[in-house]
């Protein structure tokens, strides 16, 4: 093997190595420092010789040794190193030495623990996202700060505070039981989706880095699916991310305006991602253990099966949204279901149903946009204009705002026609 793409080898090995070091030291900071040391050593040594057959095993050995050194220095005044933390002899073949440590069952749990540590329930959402990106995906503080439009110093503080909180919360190291495992999977899947969504919804920030967030989330989801193919929600999560991501080129037009599902050019959807998402979903559903990610993936998949918005299978969508409302009730899910109901039974009835969502969604732009479109369909142009005005007030991004402005100007155009009301 030639010594090429060294940093990519480091990036690929990172989750596995950091998870193993975190288990060895029981301390994320120490594990990160040890990984850093090991990486520097790897860059030197791999350039001279070659990339080892198992870069992760090599890095774990180097990281353990570096970590033990640091630990000894630190603990000279305080305590002695635990007995099981003996450095591995450099002369021994590190790959043989560590084959055991890389045994499937062990590193599977190590990675789950590491990820769960990063999205521990004591952490706030933005802390979970920042920690997962920093520790597992290995993005730099600068990169994460840029993605969230904050100063690097602010992001640094956010990460430090998050680390302190998980240290204080003391995650136990014994094997989780079935229930705890399920909870961990669910927390980890949610955090990965947060990362994806942060990139996908592009609530702010430069596009390039946003795309990175989506891709990092997909990379983490792929890793988890590989480690835990028997967990249908993880496959559901990956399916959902892939299908959403398949539309990335259709979601903004040349002027950077948001293009809704209705108006997207479906020929630009990435068919490879859609095919992979659909088969992952089918494999997941064979388990007959549906969860929110599988249902959301099924909703996204339903859209991929029609060639145009007009051909959308609204009946199927209504069933899926109903199922989602049972499993994970939320006003946003209810709003989506009402949109589907309007497609099936007309806007009058749907407008009626919308009323109960006014309070919980009073600061949600989409609520007003939906209301506005119903009113426009009913010919209530003035009321529709008011609703879209509210949507404008609560839009989070330029793309969103420009889209609403476009709809508003269309409303003005139709207003000039006799018998107006229907959107073109």
């Amino acid at each position, binding site marked *: *093997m030639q010594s090429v793409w060294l940093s990519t*080898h480091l990036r*690929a090995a990172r989750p*596995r190595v950091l998870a193993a070091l975190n288990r060895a030291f029981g301390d994320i900071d120490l594990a990160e420092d040890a990984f850093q040391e090991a990486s520097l050593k790897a860059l030197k040594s791999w350039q001279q010789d070659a990339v080892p057959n198992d870069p992760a095993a090599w890095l774990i050995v180097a990281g353990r040794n570096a970590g033990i050194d640091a630990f000894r220095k630190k603990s000279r005044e305080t305590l002695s190193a635990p007995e099981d933390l003996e450095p591995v002899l450099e002369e021994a073949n590190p790959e043989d030495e560590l084959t055991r440590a890389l045994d499937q069952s062990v590193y599977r749990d190590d990675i789950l623990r590491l990820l769960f540590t990063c999205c521990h329930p004591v952490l706030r959402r933005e802390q979970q996202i920042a920690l997962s990106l920093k520790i597992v995906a290995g993005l730099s503080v600068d990169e994460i700060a840029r993605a969230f439009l904050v100063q690097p110093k602010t992001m640094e503080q956010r990460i430090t505070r998050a680390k302190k909180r998980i240290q204080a919360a003391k995650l136990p190291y014994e094997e989780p039981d079935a229930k705890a495992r399920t909870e961990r999977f669910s927390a980890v899947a949610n955090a990965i989706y947060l990362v994806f969504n942060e990139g996908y919804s592009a609530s702010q920030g430069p596009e390039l880095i946003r795309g990175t967030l989506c891709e990092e989330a997909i990379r983490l989801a792929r890793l988890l699916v590989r480690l835990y*193919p*028997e967990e249908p929600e993880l*496959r559901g999560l990956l399916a959902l991310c892939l299908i959403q991501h398949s539309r990335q080129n259709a979601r903004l037009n040349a002027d950077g305006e948001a293009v809704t599902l209705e108006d997207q050019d479906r020929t630009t959807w990435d*068919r490879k991602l859609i095919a992979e998402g659909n088969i992952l979903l089918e494999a997941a559903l064979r388990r007959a253990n549906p969860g929110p990610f599988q249902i959301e993936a099924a909703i996204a998949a339903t859209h991929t099966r029609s060639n145009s918005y007009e051909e959308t299978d609204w009946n199927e969508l209504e069933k899926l949204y109903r199922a989602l409302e049972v499993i994970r009730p939320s006003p946003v899910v209810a709003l989506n279901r009402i949109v589907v109901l309007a497609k099936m039974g007309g806007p009058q009835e749907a407008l009626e149903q919308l009323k109960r969502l006014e309070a919980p969604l009073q600061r949600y732009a989409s609520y007003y946009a939906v209301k506005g479109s119903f009113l426009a369909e009913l010919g209530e142009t003035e009321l529709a204009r008011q609703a879209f005005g509210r949507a404008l007030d609560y839009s989070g991004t330029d793309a969103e705002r420009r889209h609403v402005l476009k709809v508003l100007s269309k409303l003005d155009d139709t207003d000039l026609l006799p018998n107006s009301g229907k959107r073109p």
Partner: protein
Amino acid sequence: MLFSVLIYASEDFIDALTPEEHQEMMKKHGAFHEDTKTNKNFAAATKLMSTGTAVTINRDSDDFVVTDGPFAETKEQFMGFYLIDCPNLEEAIEKVKILPLDHGRIEIRPVEYFEGADFNNAERLVINAS
């Protein structure tokens, strides 16, 4: 003689490639396509989806058991294969040198039997040779 060119790589590594590195890798595949098609060696090309999409089917006495994922986890996964028609192994080896060999592993194995098919359900992912 028909040779299969079997490609193995670490999915962790493939996932970690930067877009530029990925492009560089695909360029070599492109060169392989071009060379084998120009010289009438090309028979088939197949790139597999991630192992996360796989299921494994076994027989347990009278029952079929379908488990999720590939049968055994190894560091390297089977990523896809080419079929090329070459007069001998020597030439097959020369052709394969065009492919990206900096990471992962490529195995050349002669084909004993091969039959093609028409496709009903493969949509746009399958490109039938004319």
